């Protein structure tokens, strides 16, 4: 599963620690999600989508990501 988390986080100028704080997870988890080592559960994906005010599909995709 690919995701745009790193890009979306950078757009808001949040560090991994900031995002971890907002989601109440560890920075380790954010790093694992961003690098594709770990796919979050549906509740965490919804939490991410709500935080970024977007949909889950806008963050996660099973298609290869286009380089921006």
């Amino acid at each position, binding site marked *: 599963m690919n995701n745009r988390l790193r890009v979306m986080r950078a757009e808001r100028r949040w560090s991994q*620690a900031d995002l971890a704080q907002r989601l*109440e*997870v*560890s*920075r*380790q*988890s954010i790093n*694992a999600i961003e690098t594709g080592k770990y796919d979050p559960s549906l509740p*965490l994906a919804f939490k991410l989508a709500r935080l970024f005010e977007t949909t889950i599909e806008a963050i996660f995709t099973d298609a290869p990501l286009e380089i921006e």
Partner: protein
Amino acid sequence: MTSEDSTTARRLSTREMQRGVAPFILLYFVSYLFFSHGHPAHNSARAYVQVGCLGVSMVAMIIALAVFTMRQRDEFQRQLLMLAILWGLCGTFAITTVWGMLESLTDVPRLPIVASFPIFIVIMAITKVTLFRRNRAADE
């Protein structure tokens, strides 16, 4: 621990770990004090109490681990912990099975059954440290 590691999740995780391990530590010290000062004089009675305390401490440790796993809010860390537990279980089964076969076929010394729990804990601890090191947050 760096300042970046002190997220809310990390603090919650540490608090839950402290709460979970507290019964084990308490039991350990109670049994330590018991054997240091007020242990029964009769050998068999002492052995019964010792085995009982050891059993209770082990059960307390398993309960502590279960409570910590259930209350762990960070799902990624919970997954790493579950993996470590699985490795611990599988490693214990593998070691005790192979050792049992060796006992049947060769003259190796008998592996006491009480060793299985420490084997599990050691394998789980090694795996946990390895997994957490492999998956630690890289620099941004």
